[in-house]
């Protein structure tokens, strides 16, 4: 199907196709790079805050600046030992949390249906939101194992 470059919908569709992974394998590779990027975002913020350059970080963790550059460019994937070394060198700690996307989408549907109902009735409306989870529930289990949990997201 040819693209009419003056047509908003055509342009949107063309780019949407570009940024949609073409296979499950591609989607997983994207996710892996994104998880790495979440770590590296924190790493970059931290080493710049300390006034370091990338080569300083490389030296501290015993690797080459070009390896670090390849990680930042997304051409190589980081491993957990390297994350531990960065954490140690920068004296930081990564906090890990996860979001249940099923729960999140059902909550959105619930709120959206409630709002639609009230708006259709032409009434003023209150927006009810569930109480936040207790502080205890929000605490991260300190005994977690990365290998035991395969859907962790880094904050």
């Amino acid at each position: 199907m040819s693209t009419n470059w003056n047509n908003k919908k055509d342009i949107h569709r063309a780019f949407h196709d570009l940024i949609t992974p073409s296979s499950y394998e591609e989607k997983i590779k994207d996710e892996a790079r994104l998880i790495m990027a979440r770590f590296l975002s924190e790493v970059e913020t931290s080493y710049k805050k300390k006034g370091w350059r990338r080569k300083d970080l490389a030296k501290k963790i015993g690797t080459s600046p070009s390896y670090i550059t390849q990680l930042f460019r997304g051409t190589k994937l980081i491993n957990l030992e390297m994350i531990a070394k960065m954490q140690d060198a920068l004296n930081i700690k990564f906090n890990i949390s996860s979001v249940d996307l099923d729960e999140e989408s059902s909550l959105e549907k619930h709120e959206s249906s409630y709002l639609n109902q009230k708006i259709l009735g032409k009434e003023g409306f209150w927006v009810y939101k569930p109480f936040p989870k207790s502080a205890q529930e929000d605490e991260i289990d300190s005994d977690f194992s990365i290998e035991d949990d395969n859907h962790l997201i880094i904050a």
Partner: protein
Amino acid sequence: MKRKAIKISESADHKKAIYVDKQNAEKIYHYINQDKRHKNKFRHITHIILEGLRNTELYDKEDIDKKSKGVTAMKFFKGQENDRIYCKEITTENKTFVVIACELHQKKKSKGISHKEKNIIHNVAEYEYELE
């Protein structure tokens, strides 16, 4: 006259969005669509922007002087082809953070900013947009 920009992607919370300059959309599209390597890189950069992550190796400000405020660059294959898509960052009235991919610049040769690049960056800084 205001230029037009078309939305191509947004974050799940709708607080961040990526648009493309309508006038340059075809050129930018064909550049990204040339092979899998370019498409993978573009997807990765869009994810980084939409999550608000910091990675100056792939996306960074190009504020070379006072006349280049709000201009950024998506960086493709630094140290190799060294291509750029110059972008403009704006915040809409409803507080959505928007990055508009404005101008493609291929084979950035020098490490510093050439006269040609300076011109593109200054032009992009002056672009005004109507978001479609």
